[in-house]
């Protein structure tokens, strides 16, 4: 079975949860997690609508049309430096096709070196970059990389979400920046071996303008994402080390293993489940059901885990809160008991409070007339 290649999105997700050995191992080994999740009986709900797919491709084609004239204009305009965008003939668009990922990465590296040495503009359309992650190579394909005459390489991300009145959805921009950071990291590996080359820490995000399909662009500074990704990827346990801890003969062969065998194989590697995984990992539903079976509190969110200290299961927290277990001198336990008492008191008093509020409500109604006047001034501003 051919290995399932890692892409930038997967790497960004991995970097977001570096403590998850399960994901690191499966990704590193190139296991198709989607198929695995299906075999485990918790298929991932991911999928892309063909409408979005078509629209994305059409927009990217439009941005790169005519040898990237429009893209270059946006780049020159937004990134400054070169006030005059290069004339269409000045930009070389090297052919990057080659056989196999190794061939393509070599071809890309060569094109990058040639363009830098030539000191001219070059647009690399879908170059292929390699990055070693946890001891195994990952191949990454940015939308485009632009080489400038001064030797600076700039990652270009083309996305089909709109930039309306100059601003786009913050979460989508964040995801794009994290993805671009992975590309920039991979580019840096090539840049260190290329004289006069430097990878720009600003990437160009190209999006449709308002409600049209005209491209507009914005510069995104990815220094923060770069350092976070670099650190997280370095933190990833080497896959060999994880594999060494597995029982002999553990395999994730989807064709030859039964569901039960796969389940025990997956369970042999520890996972760090958090609700955020649901949006990023194919195995999330499987891990979630395991976390829930265990009664793990982090299934309710990472912050919940932080709040509860040493108490890690729902049962332990509730019995500590109700005074059955736990050390009353432990500040977490003491706070929990106090919270449980206050909550119970408030709920028990709710019925009584409702009656009282009916009385208070009449007083409030009288007051509302006065309040009308009082808020009149305040309402104006937001009005």
């Amino acid at each position, binding site marked *: 079975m051919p290995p399932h290649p890692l892409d930038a999105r997967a790497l960004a997700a991995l970097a977001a949860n570096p403590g998850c050995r399960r994901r690191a191992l499966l990704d590193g080994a190139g296991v198709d997690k989607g198929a695995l999740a299906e075999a485990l009986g918790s298929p991932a709900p991911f999928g892309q609508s063909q409408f979005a797919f078509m629209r994305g491709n059409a927009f990217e084609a439009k941005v790169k049309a005519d040898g990237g004239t429009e893209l270059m204009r946006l780049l020159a305009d937004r990134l400054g430096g070169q006030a005059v965008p290069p004339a269409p003939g000045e930009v070389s668009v090297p052919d990057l096709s080659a056989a196999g990922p190794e061939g393509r990465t070599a071809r890309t590296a060569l094109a990058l070196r040639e363009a830098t040495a030539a000191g001219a503009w070059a647009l690399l359309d879908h170059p292929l970059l390699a990055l070693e992650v946890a001891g195994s190579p990952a191949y990454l394909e940015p939308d485009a990389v632009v080489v400038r005459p001064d030797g600076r390489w700039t990652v270009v991300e083309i996305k089909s979400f709109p930039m*309306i009145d100059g601003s786009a959805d913050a979460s989508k921009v964040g995801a794009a920046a994290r993805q671009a950071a992975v590309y920039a990291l991979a580019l840096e590996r090539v840049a260190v071996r290329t004289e006069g080359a430097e990878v720009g820490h600003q990437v160009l995000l190209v999006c449709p303008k308002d409600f049209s399909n005209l491209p507009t662009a914005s510069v995104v500074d990815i220094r923060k994402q770069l350092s976070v990704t670099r650190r997280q990827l370095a933190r990833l346990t080497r896959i060999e080390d994880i594999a060494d801890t597995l029982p002999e003969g553990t395999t994730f062969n989807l064709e030859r293993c039964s569901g039960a065998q796969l389940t025990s194989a997956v369970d042999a590697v520890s996972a760090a489940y958090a609700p955020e995984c649901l949006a990023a990992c194919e195995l999330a539903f499987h891990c979630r059901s395991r976390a829930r079976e265990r009664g793990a509190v982090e299934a309710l969110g990472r912050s919940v885990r932080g709040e509860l200290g040493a108490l890690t299961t729902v049962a332990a927290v509730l019995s500590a809160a109700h005074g059955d277990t736990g050390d009353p001198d432990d500040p977490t336990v003491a*706070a929990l008991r106090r919270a449980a008492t206050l909550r119970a008191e408030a709920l028990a008093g709710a019925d009584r409070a409702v009656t009282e*509020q009916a009385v208070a409500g009449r007083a409030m109604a009288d*007051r509302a007339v006065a309040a009308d006047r009082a808020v009149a001034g305040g309402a104006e501003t937001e*009005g």
Partner: protein
Amino acid sequence: MSLISTLARLEAVASGRARPLATVRHRRISERPLVLVPLTTAGEAGAPLGALVGTDRDAPRLLTVAQPRDRDLRFAFLGELAEAVLPYIDAYTDVIEPAERNETDPETGKRVKVEVELCVDAPQLVVPSRPGIDFVRLLGRSMRFRRTAEEDPETPYPAPPRVPLLGRWLTHYGERARVPGSSLLLATTDLLNRHWATGQSGLEDQHLGALLAWIDPPGTLSGAEAALLAELERDRDGQLACPPAGPATDPAFDNRLLAPAIERYDRARQELGAAEDGADAEERLARLTAAERHIRALLLGVMRPTWDAVWHGLDLLRQLPEGARVEERWTRDRWSFTGHRDRVRAGEPPQPRRDDAVTAAQKLASRETALAQLAAAEALDDPLVLAGHRLSGEAFVGEVTEVVMAYSEGKRPSPRPLITVRTDDRPHLGERTKVFRSLDGKPQSAEFVRYGDGPADEDEAGTGTGTGTGTGTGTDEDGTLVLRLTDRMGRSKEPAPGSVPEKGDRISWTLFEHDQRGGPKLPDPEETPWTHGGPPVREGTAEAGPDAPRQAPDPVTEEDFL
């Protein structure tokens, strides 16, 4: 998330049902809300696919776009949406009551009271989820700069009448939804999450179906089981039994059902265009109509469950009694609605693409005020919310054990009684920390004097030079503390009847203020300092630069979307 709400979530996990987070309803639910369930086309900015809209839960109005890339069809959709929404809004604009408003007299510069109209009630829009609110805002933005043929006969693609007006209203509602505690535009998921804690994470709570499953699971299922089904259950065609609450659709729906249906529609339309004679055309028209009807049926199929879920959610919320201070916030919403009505009537231009510095600062300031007001009001309305503040030391409930009369120093001594309170709570009290209680709906303030209930020191009964016995750290063993009441006792030497607590009263005190005063006054937009971009440039003035035509319609390109 406070520990009390975390605890509620854990209780929900253990019991398999959502647990209450509030004992009263903290938002207004109108008697006749307009529910809007929109759908959008994946990957397109603001290309609507369809909507269910209406005030009658049994008879939603179905609006669809058979080919979302077709501008004419999109405009027809928006025109229909305007016909569905605007009459509902209009019904509220003329039912008014007289009210007074403080305004600055332009000549004298004094604050004067002006007689104005205030709408008695306001229209309320309810969407399924938070992305629905964003979509309302997006629709508003996409429509308000359109030009109708009536406004501008030259415009290349005139919008149907009233579409720009709908855009302005949706923009207003979208903006108002950003004010904490407002109820003009509500998301059902937000409403439910405010009042119940489920046994899942906040991220999963954004799924309306799963959320409702935890609160009110069908049949004998537990909340957890029902929520899992709502998330994942698919039929033989791979279609979700509980489709997403929109505006995004499920990719499996797009790829397996919708895309082929739209293709069939496109083909039928092409064939109709190529029809050669009448009989042929008639047959092909029938095929086109059938293809369109098929798309409508598909879209209705994925929107109807969400429509019913929204009403189900509203039913659940209506079972809670409304909090006492909700009316006051709703009054603010009515002012907001009336204000926009007045601006539309006065012929003001649509809201600008970007706010100028002063407007933006004003909006932020008023949202901050609203947030603080909301937090205080919810705590005063709801013992369960107050419990959270008690846990964090920002409030305490205690029984009055002793009241000692005392007076302030000075020419006219005013009553400053010392109240001894016994409480189990651990408020964070420092020297002369101000505390507040609600007296007939108004805040009465007191200041902390000392811990313990020893005999009052003569020095301390005065203006409070004494530091008390246990100021700052730790509560006294038995949890008693002494407060000095400082206002709302009338002007005479004897406190007004009922204004001083009596022995045995059980009173809630908060360390936060109940009312928030707004910040300092901002300059007029014309006075905007250069540090903030200077005065806004008005359209049509001599100095209008290239950025000036802020109200100009969006440029229209041949292949643009919407």
